[in-house]
């Protein structure tokens, strides 16, 4: 049996100390991913430090008018929160589009951000995988990869990031707050996930031993007019093939603010800045929406068996923006 120690803490400092003092110690929140990976032999922590009793379980108003999501707030609680639903509807929709009710009741804000890829080669220790064992190779790049990355991958790894929640958070410029033994810190989500490069095992810019304490959603009027659309291989309970979180603010016929992020296409949630630039400042016509989608996916490099995802990403950007534009039009006319 692979024995491991388990310890529950009530103080952030204790949790940080425990992880710093013990080799192979890891934080445990909802456990919906790490426990599976332990069973599969992908993760073998010597110690789990349970952080669910830390005082990080609240959703609070930020001074600037945004929201602060505590790290151990469950995914279900975020999705059901009245302020989230009113001010950031795409976030609520994204969470509800992921996993199952049972999993969402356990999974937390911080854990969701840190979940690992669902690439089948990553979760099977008998396969080569640079993300699991650096330098061992990538089985997926010439293997079964019909649901792998189309953007920003390298020969070292073609896996995608599985989170739905992180996609609207990326679109809304969320900021990750963390605590270390040397003090607190912040990283914008846009810089939180590292590019694949040649070390796909290094996934985030979080300092070693740091504990995520909160995710801050800045105030953004545009986020109130947002939606999340997820396409997957069945109607429910599957990771995204491609997903889109988008928000659109049209004033006097011109796009004043637009946010677009994609899930399922890269090793991290993909902020579609090129599409945003192409749309901002002009009218939200079908033609301009189409051009914006094309501009964004022009950089896509499909693998042998996933070119359909390029088409899907383009179509989905168009579909979601078209719906948002129609909503703006109805509001204006109505």
């Amino acid at each position, binding site marked *: *049996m*692979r024995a491991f120690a388990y310890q529950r803490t009530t103080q952030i400092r204790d949790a940080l100390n425990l992880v710093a003092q013990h080799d192979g110690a890891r934080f445990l929140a909802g456990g919906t991913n790490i426990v599976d990976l332990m069973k599969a*032999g992908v993760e073998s922590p010597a110690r789990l430090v349970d952080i669910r009793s830390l005082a990080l379980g609240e959703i609070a108003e930020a001074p600037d008018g945004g929201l602060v999501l505590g790290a151990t707030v469950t995914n279900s609680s975020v999705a059901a929160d009245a302020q989230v639903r009113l001010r950031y509807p795409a976030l609520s929709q994204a969470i509800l589009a992921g996993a199952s009710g049972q999993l969402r009741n356990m999974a937390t804000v911080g854990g969701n951000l840190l979940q690992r890829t*669902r690439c*089948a*080669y990553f*979760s*099977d220790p*008998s*396969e080569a995988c640079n993300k699991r064992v650096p330098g061992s190779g990538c*089985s997926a790049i*010439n*293997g*079964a990869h*019909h649901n792998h990355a189309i953007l920003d991958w390298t020969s070292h790894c073609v896996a995608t990031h599985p989170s739905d929640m992180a996609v609207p958070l990326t679109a809304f410029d969320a900021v990750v707050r963390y605590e270390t033994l040397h003090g607190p810190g912040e990283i914008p989500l846009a810089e939180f996930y590292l590019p694949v490069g040649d070390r796909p095992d290094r996934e985030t810019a979080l300092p070693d031993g740091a504990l995520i304490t909160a995710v801050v959603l800045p105030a953004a009027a545009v986020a109130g007019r947002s939606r999340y659309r997820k*396409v997957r*291989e*069945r*109607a*429910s*309970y*599957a*990771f995204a*093939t491609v997903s889109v979180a988008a928000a659109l603010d*049209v004033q006097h*016929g011109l796009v004043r603010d637009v946010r677009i992020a994609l899930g399922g296409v890269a090793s991290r949630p993909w902020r579609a800045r090129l599409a945003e630039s192409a749309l901002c400042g002009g*009218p*939200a*016509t*079908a033609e301009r929406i*189409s051009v914006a*989608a094309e501009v964004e996916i022009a950089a896509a490099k499909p693998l042998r068996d*996933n070119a*359909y*995802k390029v*088409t*899907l990403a*383009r*179509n*989905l950007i*168009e*579909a979601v923006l*078209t719906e948002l*534009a*129609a909503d*703006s*039009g109805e509001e*204006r006319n109505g």
Partner: protein
Amino acid sequence: MNPDGITAAVGESRPRVEGRLKVTGSAHYVADLPMPNLAHGWMVTATVSHGRIRDIDATDALAMPGVLGVLDHRNARRLNPDVAHHFGPDRSLPMLQHEVIEYAGRPIALVVAETPEQARAAAAALRVTYDAEPHDIEFSMNHPAVRPASTLFGPEADTGDLEAELAASAVVVDEVYHTPEESHSALEPHVATAWWEDGHLHALDSNQGPFGISQVMASLFLIDPERVHIRAEHVGGGFGAKTVCGAQIILAAMAAEHFQRPVRVALTRRQVFLATGSRPPTEQRVRIGADADGRLRAVHHHAAFALSPLAEYIEWCTEQARTLYAAPAIRTELSAVPLNLLPPCSMRGPGAAPGSFAFESAVDEVAERLQIDPLQLRLLNQPVVSPVSGRPFSTRRLVQCFQEGARRFGWAQRDHRPRVRREGNLLVGTGVAAVAFIAGVFPSAATITAEADGTFSVRVGATDIGTGARTALIAVAADALGVGTERIHLHIGDSDIGPAAGAGGSRGTTSCAFAIIETAKALREKLVDPARPVTASVDTTPLINWQPDEERYTYSAVFAEVTVDPATGEVRVRRLLGMFAVGRVINPLLARSQLIGGMIGGLSMALHEESVRDPITGRLVTADFAGYHISAHADVPNVEADFVVDYEPQDPSGFNGLGEIGNAGTAAAIANAVWHATGTRHRTLPISLGRVIEPAAAHDHPGAVSVA
């Protein structure tokens, strides 16, 4: 009215008798049953698709806590290399006999320890090295190793002058269809507990027919079949994957003998995917020629499937072509391609499900080319007698299924042109498909004792894998004995009861019902004498007419409505209706549940299920439910299943089996509906979004707006 003053139980909707046990968690499955002095075996499987084991280094594993030992080809007892299974010789059953690996997932060792956790940890510490050899998993009906399939199920059809009829046809459809490797995915993973006592092998095993498994185990271990005792009281689904003698019971029995104590082998979900059988991939060429008015002239169905060189197997895809429609010329061919794949085993309407997808798609394509109603085309070509054998059908209520289904589904309002119905961005379509599923009974024995207290102990080696067989057989016994169901004590799931059909081939319940009815008849003659207890036993083997004058089938017509978003490729089934002619129905509640379950299985096959293998290593990539998608609740729409009045004359009570027919027609009905919605014919399953998405669709929809 019987002596208990109650009406007949057969024909009445009654809930499962063990339903309360199951929903309260008190029905004991094999892994729940305690066993003193139990040791636990952890199966280790090959990670190469072809090659030889160079070495299994167990040094570290043996030093780990609780480990009793490791069984592999070097120390395992010898098993009978000539063992056979229902399809013929099966060299996959003798496990741990040599170093040769013919497929990835092949069991190569069993680590035995005091606890399952210790065994699992030690199994992870086993160092296995291989000399890999080139493998071949590239399935194609044109593969150089292709050979005719076994003709155990009878010769393929060849009537009339096929080429002449094709030449004389106004329209000829000639298309190729593909279905992928699939995995059964029963809820309960395979598990067995085995022990030896005085030269007798005992096992609790999750299987679909303990008597049949006991015979194979006796042959495999070269012992008298009387010395093998296997029980399978509650089984959490099988879908065919537990019709074969599984790795879990073979390895548990070997280890129990070696370590001289009871051993349990419980597979993980991943191991179930890797090592317990699959539906093989198929490639099927269908040629159909028809006159301009839709009358069929020629039918040619050539189906090929993959199998393992280790074991004979038949995926009998050609049944529909020889049964469903009349045509002057009908030819069927069945080919097998040996590859380095997990040996397949029967799955959810074997043959009929993939065969019906290909054949009923092709029939739909004939209607498409002729621009006529595909339902009318099917009605136009109904045979009076079997189109190949010329024998009459014992009962054939397919036309009633079509007509009643069409009425309920609203088929008359259908515009038969494709891609004409839109709802916003969605394309909407409907489709239909028919099935003829071969029916009959297998030999089974029953024993009934009239007890002194007025109850009846009924023993029959049936298995209830979740279908409701137990409940159905109690009703059959009650009516046959003329008493209320509360006076029946039914004992099933035990090889010691005697020969019995397993829960497979859609024949388990019908076969065992036949045995119960015949035994009750014999017993009632003895009841004149008031002495109790009194017992009667009947084995139906001599009573079965293997050469009946009439062909015996069950029938269905399945109707489907789908929506397709061409911009994303998402296909959703909105409505499914199946009308079934399955003889006299024993329990409409449970029968409907079984058929609805089957239709959901067909939906899953149509849209989701696909085992994916790594193109380089041949290993299964989709060895969990995150990778192997079965339909989720959100994919399952309003599903209706109902019956037309039917009675099977070959059965003393009018029964026919209905275990699998629900599966068989659904994929074709959905594929035909997707064509009707989109105008694109999908000849490869599953109809996944990557196959359906249309590059220009986003620019195509009328909902596009401008708010300039």
